[in-house]
Structures are given as structure tokens and as C-alpha cells.
């Protein structure tokens, strides 16, 4: 059934098929007529039988059939006649499946009939046996099998044995491996509490699939199962991993716009003026249910309002890895005395991951000094144009005090109590799998083996970082990066995926400890105007990044240079709520919609997206995935008339409008993108009144 080349139909076959089409068309029009007029006579039903037996793909036919069955059942007198009506349907489906055993409509109809009352599920299993002999991978049959076994209440253990037999027969069977994972999930869930039970099961499964991987490393079905096992091994409850301000940090907001001797970047300045203070919680995976009821914030001068937690996620689901709230300080709170804030996450159940696992309870606390509420001093200083020229940056790694600086800025720090402890078992399992993977690769050069090794090493690093933070021992980032570089050459078809994975690994490596991060930290000082206060800039430019990750370690970043990478998307940036200056120039962003995460960066003032590919591709596939007026996710409240007077059509620039309308940009570089023209520039000025510089031009 698989790997057979399709043959071009011969002349006779073509003629036969067009002849068949004529006949089917005739039957179809008859059936539609019956359907419309609700005719369920025997003749009418017979026509539908004829049609469906030769063309099971005709979905309307199946709907008509269901209506007619319902009609017949209503007038059925006894259980015998009910049974014969149902049997007739089962017979029809069987014949239809003989015509095409991958017909969705037919399989669905069978399920529907069985839901009406079934006499013999054994017969169904026999039928399935036939279809699975014909094609052991037919996922329709497997799907139906799960339906029948649930109906028949066949124990999972027995079905597990069935998958074992099928896999023994031929292990290139994605459906069998998949069914196995479904059954084992049930079994492991049922054996709740018995933790060693799960460990034993997974241990045996690793061994089982290992045989397949070694026997034929080029067959991917086993590797997919292996990946599932790896997820099961690493699976753990969601957990708060970082926050801003970080645990134990001591943040002083001073009156003159400085933060601990550093220039107070606009976000804090602006927000301290508004007497709002951002708090960001970052989890190890996307969670939902973060609210004032699941997270308590204890704070001396807390205004007492219920805090509103906002998910920082570009997609509109309720799940997000990072959550944001603002702490309000009442006006009367203006003391230099530090006062402490304690946050308890998940003290009551309610925060859950996508897989439904509940978040475990964690705490974080920090202290804040709030400035006097003095509007005079809190005046925003005159903004100079930010220039990302090389000479404006000075490496900071040479200056030892900067380490302290990073800490004071709340650089990644998670307290011990928040640290997820990796179980010895998962550690051992990963170790074993890494060893086996290396053994296999030493004998066979196989791409999916390499990919798996890279994934295993990443998992290993994650576990290591849980148990021993900032300890460079046995960290394999260089090996992972080398593996992905290798894969890019070996398998150029999946280049984009490997580039993304490479980027994630690289970012993980860069953010794994303070020393490595320091190498990318620079001091920004406008050379032409030395009077301006210097700022700390994280420069991750020219690293071939195509995707962003490890953002939970960069919550403190206010100035970020991501230029000269290969970024196609900026997903993840939404967590960096302090970000004020962002350079995305010379990347591969090909639409405004790809910039959607930036919408959530309320503090962003300077943005450079010059020399990207916005407008270069006539087809923008991301348009259909992001929020757009076309899918009614946004735009209901947009006033399309508003711009009509200026001769600008919102319809032409809705994607730019979507991204920029809520931003308070002061400076924007957009040149070097095919989309740019005078009309767009005028439109941008219009929607961002605060904009002072556009492509270096000062506006009036």
C-alpha cells in the first residue's frame, strides 16, 4: 500500500472512468432530489446504496443515509426489524470500504450505526482484521479499532499486546506505534501514584524501540515513538522558573531618572511616573489560569486592588509562558525605605499546562524602593536619536563591576526553592539514551539519529541546569550546535527547522551563565553627544539566529540588538516587557504580521526593522495564522473611515496598522524593505503621533 508509484491511467481506464462519472452523476442528481424532498422509499434508498457502493466519497450520500435510517427506525416495529435496518447499513459500509478503505465518510457512518445499537463487536474486529491485513498502517482502521475496543471494553493490556504483534510483524508502522503511545498513556495514568510503574514502563519501551532503531535507523516510525518516550521522560509539572524582578533583587527607583547609577530607561521612568510597576512571571512552559486567585502578591503598601494578569503570548489563546501584571503604588507611598514584595504562585490549584498538569507552588520575593512622587524631577529627558553604529558600543565584559550590574538589574536568578529537581531516573534514562545514540551514530550516519542525539543532549543540559546552575560541567552546547550544522548540510530540505533548533540551542548556551552573557553585553554611548547617559545593551547580532528562545533569562533587557541574523519571526520577544530599544535590521522578516509580538511591548520607543524582506514576497503565509481583520480576530473596532480623508486606505496597510497602532514609537527605521513608499510613511506618521524620527528623518 505504501511506496508504490502512481501509474498514469491508460486510454481504456480513462474511458472507463469517464463512463463511470456519467453514471454517478445521474445517480447523484437522483439522490439530491430524494434528499431535498425527504423521500425515503425503498427505491430511493436503493439508489443511494448503489451510489455509495461505487463512490463512498460522496458525503451528502451518507448524510441522506443517516436521515433515512432515522426515518426507518421511527417506523420500525420490533427489535428484529431495527436489527435488520442496522445490518443493512453495516453491509453497505463494508461494501463501500471494499471500494475505498480510506473513505472517511464510510468509516464515520459505521461508527454512527454502531452508536445506534450494536449486536456484534466481534464481527467488527474480524472486519478490522481483514482491513489491517490489507494495509497494516491504515490509520482509519486503527482509529476504528480504538472506537471498537472502547465499546467492547477490551483491556488496554490486551490491545497493547496486539500492537506488539503488529510491530513485530513490521515495525515500520506509525499507526501501531501511535496506538501504543495512546494505550500506554492510559495505562500510566491508571497506575497513578506508582511512580516506579511509569519508570518501568518507559524503561521497557525504550528498550523495545531501541531494537527497531538499531535494526533500521533510516526508518523513521521508531524514532517518532522514541521522541514520544523522551517527552514522557522529561514531562513534569509546570513551574515558575524566572521572574522580574528576580528573587532577592533589590530595585531602587530613584527620583532623578537613574536606576542604581544607570540611566533609567524610559520604561521604568515612565511607569514610575505613573506609579505602576511591572511584574513578569515566566514558567517553563505555557500555562493558563494565572490570576489574582492563583497568585498572591503580599506587599506592605499594596493598594489592595485585585491584580490583573495578562498572558504574554502572540497567539490569542489563554496559554502563555510569561505573564504580566502591574503593581500600583498609592501616591502616599514615597519612602526610601525598601519595602518587600512576596509573590506566591499556585498556592491554590488552577494554573495548568497545555497537557493539564497542575503547576506546583513556588515563591519569589524582592524589595523595591519607590521614589517621591515628584513630577518636576520625573520629567522625561530629551530623547536623542539612537544610532546602532558600531562605535557607539563598548564591550562591558572587561569591567568586573558589570557582573554586579547585571545582578542588580535582576539578571536571571531563581532561588533554590523554585528549582525543579530532576529525578535521578530521568537523568539516568537520558544518559543511557545518549550513550546508545552515540553508539548507533558511530556505526551509521543517519540524520534522524543525529537530530535525536541533539535533542537528547538538549534535554540533558536542561536537567543539568536544574540540578547544578552555572556549572559548566558536562554541558554539551558545542556538540549540539555542531550536530545541527551537520544536519543543515546533510538534509537541506529541512534547513529552516535545523536553523531554528540551532538558534534555540545557541541562545540557551549564551544565557546559561553570567560570564557568557557578559560577553554579549555592551555599553551604549552616543559618541557625538557625550552628555547622554550610557545604557546597557545586549547585542546578539550576527549570530545566524532564525528564531528566538530563552527569553525567560532576558526579562531585564531594555536595549537589544538582534541585527544581522536570519530571524523570520520574533515570537518570544513579547516577554521582554522592559524592552525600549530594539534593533531587528538585516533579518529575514517578510511581513508586518511577523512583527505581531512587538505589539505587546508597551515600553518600546525605538525600533529598527530596516533591510528586512517586508513586502518582498507576494504571498505571506503568516497572514492566515496571525490575527487579522480577515479572520475577525482584530479590526472590529477599527475605524476604516478615519483615514479615508488623508487619501490613505486602511485596507492597504492593515498589517502595519495592526502592529504599530498601539505602539508609542519615537524612532523607527524601516528603509530597505520593498513595502516602503511615501504613502506608507505618511500612514505611519499618522498612526504614531509621537514618532520623531522615521528612517533618520526628523519629522515635524
Amino acid at each position, binding site marked *: 500500500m505504501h511506496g508504490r508509484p502512481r501509474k498514469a491511467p491508460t486510454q481504456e481506464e480513462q474511458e472507463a472512468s469517464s463512463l463511470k462519472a456519467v453514471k454517478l452523476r445521474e445517480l447523484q442528481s437522483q439522490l439530491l432530489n430524494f434528499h431535498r424532498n425527504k423521500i425515503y422509499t425503498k427505491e430511493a434508498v436503493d439508489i443511494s446504496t448503489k451510489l455509495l457502493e461505487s463512490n463512498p466519497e460522496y458525503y451528502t450520500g451518507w448524510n441522506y443515509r443517516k436521515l433515512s435510517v432515522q426515518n426507518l427506525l421511527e417506523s420500525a416495529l420490533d427489535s428484529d426489524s431495527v436489527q435488520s435496518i442496522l445490518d443493512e447499513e453495516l453491509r453497505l459500509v463494508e461494501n463501500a470500504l471494499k471500494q475505498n478503505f480510506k473513505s472517511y465518510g464510510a468509516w464515520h457512518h459505521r461508527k454512527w450505526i454502531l452508536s445506534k445499537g450494536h449486536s456484534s463487536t466481534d464481527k467488527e474486529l474480524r472486519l478490522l482484521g481483514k482491513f489491517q491485513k490489507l494495509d497494516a498502517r491504515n490509520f482509519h482502521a486503527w482509529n476504528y479499532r480504538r472506537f471498537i475496543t472502547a465499546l467492547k471494553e477490551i483491556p488496554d493490556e490486551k490491545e497493547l499486546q496486539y500492537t506488539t504483534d503488529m510491530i513485530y510483524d513490521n515495525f515500520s508502522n506509525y499507526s501501531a506505534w501511535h496506538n501504543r503511545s495512546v494505550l500506554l498513556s492510559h495505562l500510566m495514568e491508571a497506575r497513578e501514584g506508582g511512580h516506579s510503574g511509569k519508570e518501568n514502563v518507559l524503561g521497557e519501551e525504550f528498550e523495545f524501540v531501541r531494537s*527497531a532503531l538499531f*535494526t533500521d535507523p533510516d526508518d523513521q516510525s521508531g524514532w517518532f515513538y522514541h521522541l514520544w518516550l523522551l517527552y514522557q521522560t522529561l514531562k513534569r509539572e509546570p513551574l515558575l522558573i524566572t521572574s522580574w524582578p528576580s528573587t532577592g533583587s533589590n530595585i531602587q527607583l530613584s527620583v532623578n531618572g537613574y536606576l542604581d547609577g544607570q540611566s533609567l530607561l524610559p520604561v521604568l521612568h515612565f511607569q514610575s511616573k505613573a506609579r505602576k510597576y511591572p511584574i513578569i512571571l515566566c514558567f517553563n512552559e505555557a500555562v493558563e489560569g494565572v490570576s489574582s486567585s492563583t497568585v498572591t502578591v503580599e506587599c506592605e503598601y499594596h493598594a489592595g486592588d485585585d491584580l490583573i494578569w495578562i498572558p504574554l503570548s502572540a497567539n490569542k489563546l489563554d496559554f502563555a509562558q510569561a505573564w504580566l501584571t502591574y503593581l500600583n503604588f498609592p501616591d502616599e507611598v514615597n519612602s526610601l525605605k525598601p519595602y518587600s514584595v512576596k509573590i506566591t504562585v499556585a498556592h491554590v490549584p488552577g494554573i495548568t499546562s497545555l497537557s493539564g498538569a497542575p503547576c506546583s507552588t513556588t515563591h519569589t520575593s524582592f524589595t523595591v524602593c519607590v521614589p517621591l512622587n515628584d513630577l518636576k524631577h520625573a520629567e522625561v529627558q530629551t530623547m536623542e536619536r539612537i544610532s546602532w553604529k558600531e562605535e557607539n558600543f563598548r564591550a562591558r565584559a572587561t569591567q568586573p563591576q558589570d557582573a554586579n550590574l547585571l545582578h542588580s538589574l535582576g539578571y536571571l536568578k531563581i532561588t533554590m526553592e523554585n528549582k525543579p529537581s530532576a529525578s535521578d531516573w530521568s537523568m539516568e534514562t537520558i544518559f543511557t539514551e545518549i550513550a546508545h545514540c552515540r553508539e548507533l551514530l558511530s*556505526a*551509521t550516519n543517519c540524520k534522524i539519529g543525529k537530530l535525536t542525539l541533539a535533542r537528547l543532549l538538549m534535554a540533558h543540559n536542561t536537567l543539568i541546569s536544574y540540578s547544578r546552575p552555572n556549572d559548566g560541567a558536562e554541558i554539551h552546547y558545542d556538540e549540539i550546535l555542531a550536530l545541527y550544522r551537520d544536519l543543515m548540510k546533510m538534509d537541506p530540505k529541512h534547513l529552516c527547522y535545523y536553523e531554528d533548533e540551532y538558534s534555540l540551542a545557541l541562545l540557551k548556551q549564551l544565557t546559561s551563565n553570567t560570564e557568557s552573557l557578559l560577553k554579549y553585553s555592551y555599553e551604549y554611548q552616543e559618541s557625538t553627544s557625550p552628555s547622554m547617559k550610557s545604557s546597557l545593551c545586549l547585542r546578539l547580532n550576527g549570530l545566524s539566529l532564525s528564531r528566538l528562545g530563552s527569553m525567560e533569562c532576558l526579562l531585564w533587557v531594555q536595549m537589544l540588538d538582534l541585527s544581522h541574523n536570519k530571524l523570520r519571526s520574533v515570537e518570544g520577544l513579547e516577554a521582554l516587557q522592559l524592552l525600549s530599544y530594539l534593533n531587528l535590521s538585516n533579518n529575514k522578516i517578510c511581513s508586518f504580521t511577523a512583527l505581531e509580538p512587538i505589539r505587546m511591548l508597551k515600553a518600546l520607543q525605538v525600533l529598527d526593522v530596516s533591510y528586512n524582506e517586508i513586502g518582498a514576497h507576494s504571498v505571506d503565509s503568516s497572514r492566515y495564522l496571525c490575527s487579522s481583520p480577515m479572520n475577525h480576530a482584530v479590526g472590529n473596532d477599527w475605524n476604516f473611515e478615519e483615514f479615508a480623508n488623508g487619501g490613505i486606505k486602511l485596507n492597504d496597510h492593515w498589517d502595519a496598522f495592526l502592529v504599530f497602532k498601539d505602539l508609542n514609537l519615537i524612532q523607527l527605521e524601516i528603509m530597505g524593505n520593498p513595502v516602503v513608499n511615501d504613502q506608507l510613511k505618511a500612514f505611519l506618521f499618522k498612526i504614531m503621533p509621537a514618532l520623531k524620527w522615521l528612517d533618520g528623518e526628523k519629522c515635524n
Partner: protein
Amino acid sequence: MDETASYPPIEPSNFDLIVIGTGLPESILASAASATGKNVLHLDPNPFYGTLYSSLPLNELTSFLRSQSQPLTPENDESTPQLLTLPLYSSIEINSLSLEPIENSRKLNLDLSGPRVLLCSDSMIDLILKTGINQYMEFKSVDASFVGDAEGNLGSVPDSRSAIFKDRSLSLTEKNQLMKLFKLVQGHIGKESGEDDLISEEDLESPFVEFLNKFGLSQKLKSIILYAIVLADHDQDNLENCKDVINTKSGIDHLALYHSSIGRFPNANGPMIYPIYGQGELPQAFCRRAAVKGCIYKNGLDSFNETFETPFGLGLDVRFVVFKKLRCDLGWVLRMPVAALLMDKDGLTYKGVKLVSGQELFSNQLILAPCFMIPSRLTPAAQVANSYDVGRRDAKEKVARGICIAKSSVKPEAANCLVFFPPKSLYPEQKTTVRVLQLSGNVAACPSGMFVTYLSAMCDNAVEGKKLLDAAISALFSLPICGNSENNGIEKLSEHTDSKPILLWSALYIQELTMFQDSFNSISFTPLPDEHLHYNYLLDATEKLYQKIYPNEEFLTQTNLPEEPVDDDSSELD
């Protein structure tokens, strides 16, 4: 010779070809010749089909073995050389170890030249399908293959992708290497002409064992491939003293044949199949085809139609009716002992044969089974063997064969299975592979609940041959201790030998592989049963012989036999 009178006279008395003996080569040749319109008379002195390739009940087997082990004393009649029996078997040793006689011993179908199976993609199967005789036969697949050692531990033979996956005794690296080799072979065989060779010409000419070494295979895997899949007889690790070094090309060809045999027929789960009722069915099927094609019926031999009832139109029980029938009159072949050859006056040119009934029949050509002998004469001796590579064969080599009967299987989960004991696996001096085929009641080799086991090994002499087979038998079976304290003995035995089957009966004999016969024009001897597990070489030799006799005729072309009722829907070659 009371029977003599019952032989009807044969009319006419001139034929293109007379074939004496119904062994597989004789039957194929008769079938091939009659298919091209030759006027063929097929005779057999024995009351059963198959001659040296027959499947017989226990007592008939032993008496046939004995009858073929001693030459008859020739009478001195110069003008009509007597047709004598050549001693093919020697050192016959029959052991009845059970106190009770074997029940239903008539229900046993014991192969005379076992162990032998068919590979689903081999040339014999192709011939069976081509000639259509599959409609006369049924097959069952051999469940599994094992490699054994002196203790009787039987390790599985991971011969396919799923078998490698399932195997628990292989290390992960071994699994990887073995599958890689299999893939390489498939790639090499399947490559289009013009593509780069996956295996260099130089490698193809080198010994296969060296190629496997280069591949980095473990000793265990090498042994499995060489002796259980490529079916090597001689110790390939000892290249200097090895009598038959398998080169990479033939090793790979055999591996490819083995793999293409897996899954050829949906009902056969392994690469090998065995004919139900024994290998004697094969010659019988060819005889039947020969009859259909006109052998002996041709040219107005109408009177024979009454004597030799045609099998057509007998319902579903055809096989059984026929099977019983041939014991009395051999359905399609004339059961007729031949007394002597008729020679020209010079005593060197063949003219015809003289039957025991005294009738004289004449033909242009005579084909004789190799168990017959023409008394020595002035003519130079010709070597008769399965003519595959006659030159290379060591004339001293023989094959030791054994048949064992037990009431349980050597491997409980397998009813029909093969066991290979590679060289040195039984004892350090073991030079050749011992091959074992166990069959159960489901192939009608024996009544259900019983198991028949065939063994064979190449040897230079009877002592060596017996030693090889004895070692394999004691590795597989436990021998009942006879004596007064019989019950105690058996109890003790079962404690010590776990679940090894108890040997009830055995027969060991040494069969010649090479014969020297006088060569006459117009008289040909068919090949002897060879030492191999399959029929490929035998078939090659038979075809060569046919080409020699009829250089301008085609050898069994594709033909359709008249429709006959198909015996059973489980027939696997449909």
C-alpha cells in the same frame, strides 16, 4: 516372481525414449521430453514413486535402503547385460529405541534423501509454477531456522528485518550490522545497470567470509549467514583446507535468493516451504504431468487407458486415491522391472531393454536412475554425480543421512523447523555443517503428535559421517536408557535433560555422491541426490542432461495444464 504374469504386454515396442526410475530428475526429464512430442515410456521397477527421491512408510524405507546397499550378483550373459542395482547406501544403522513399536508406522512418509526443502524463489519453484504442477501439490512453510550447539541450545536465525528486530540474543550493534548487510545485498541486486557497483568486482571474487570480516560482523553473525542462510557445507574460516570456498558473489546471490523467498507467497511466513506428504510428491507430480502431456499414452496406446486410469475428474480426494493407487500400479508410470539391456552385436550400442516379462522394447535413448548399474565393460568409466561442478568434487565425499522419530519437538514453539550445526559447533574437529529438518504431522510426514527429523552432513567416510550425525542427535535428543530399571532411568533422564525430546527410532546411512558408470551412447544416468538442502543444483544438472540428449529441444516451457479440481484452498502457490 509371481507378479511377472500380471504385467500386461506393451504395444508398440518402439519409443523415442525409455526412462527407468521415477526419481525427480527422471520424472522431470520424462515430463520435458513428452512435452516436446517425444514418444516416451516411463518405467519403474518399484511399487512406489520417486526411486531415490521417494517418501516411504517406515518399513518400506528400511527395506529399500537395504536393497540398495548390496549389488546383485550378475549373471554371465554377454549379449544382454543385466541391469543391476548399484550399492548407493552403506553403513545402514537402524535403531529402534522404544520398547513399543512405532504406532501408525504406515502413516509415516519418510524422505529417502532428506533433509530437503524448497526456497520460495528458487528455480525449482519457478519450474513448478511454469509447468503448472502446483495444482497437484500443497505446501506448508517451515516455521523457523535455528543454529545449534553441542549442548542443544538453539539460537534463532535472524534472517529478515522483523526477525532482527525481534531477536533478543543479538546486541544492538549486531542488529545494525546485519540489517546493513541485508540492505547492501538488496541494493546490490536491485541496482540498475550503469549504476555504481555497491560491491567492487574485486570483493565479489574474494571469499565471502573475508567480505563478512571486512563488514565487521561478529563470529556469531558470520556463522549464521554462512551456514544457516548461505548454506555452506565446509568450514569457511579455514580457507586453506576448505573444500568449497564460497566467494562473495555466490554468497550474495544466495542471500538475495533467500530474501526474495521471504514473502513471495502470502501464506508462507518464512523463506522455505515443504511439500505436504513429503518430497516424494514432487517426482510424482512431474510424472502426472508427463502423463497428461502424452507420455506412454501416445501413438495409439489406447489399451493403457484402461490399465492406467486417468486421474481427471476424481473429486477432491484425488491425492489420496492416487497415493494409494500408485502402490499397486503406479498411476501414470508403468510398474515394470527391467531385466536387462539389449545391445547391438558389437555389445557397445544400446538398442533397447528387456522386461522381466520377457518382452523386448526398443528406443533411441535410455535414461536410467543412478541406482542402476550396467556390468562393467571395455568402455571408459564416466562419473555420475549431480553434475554441478563435478570436477571440483572430491570423489571420496559422501553424505551421511539420518532420520529420527520422536514424540515432541526439538523446539517447542516450532513444529516444522530447520537446525544448523555449523563446523566446530558440535566438537572442535567438526569440518562440515550438520543440517537438520524437523517435520510434524501438519505436513503429513507423520501422524500428529509425532515428529520426524532428518539430518545430513558431508563426510569423507562412514566413521566421520556417523560421528557428525551422532553428535547432532545427542545435542537434540535424549536417548532412552533401556534396561530393567527403565522407569527410573527415564525419570532421571528427564531431570537432567530438561525438555529434550526422547528419541524413539533412528536410521543412519551413508549415501554415495559420486558413481562411476560405463558410458554408452544413448544411455544416460540421472544425477544422484546431492548434499544440498534445496533442489537448485539438481535441477541445473537435470537440465544440462536434457540439453545433452536433446540439444535442439526446449526444456519445459510455460504451458497450461488442463483444468483440474484444486485440492485445497490452502495451496500456497496459487
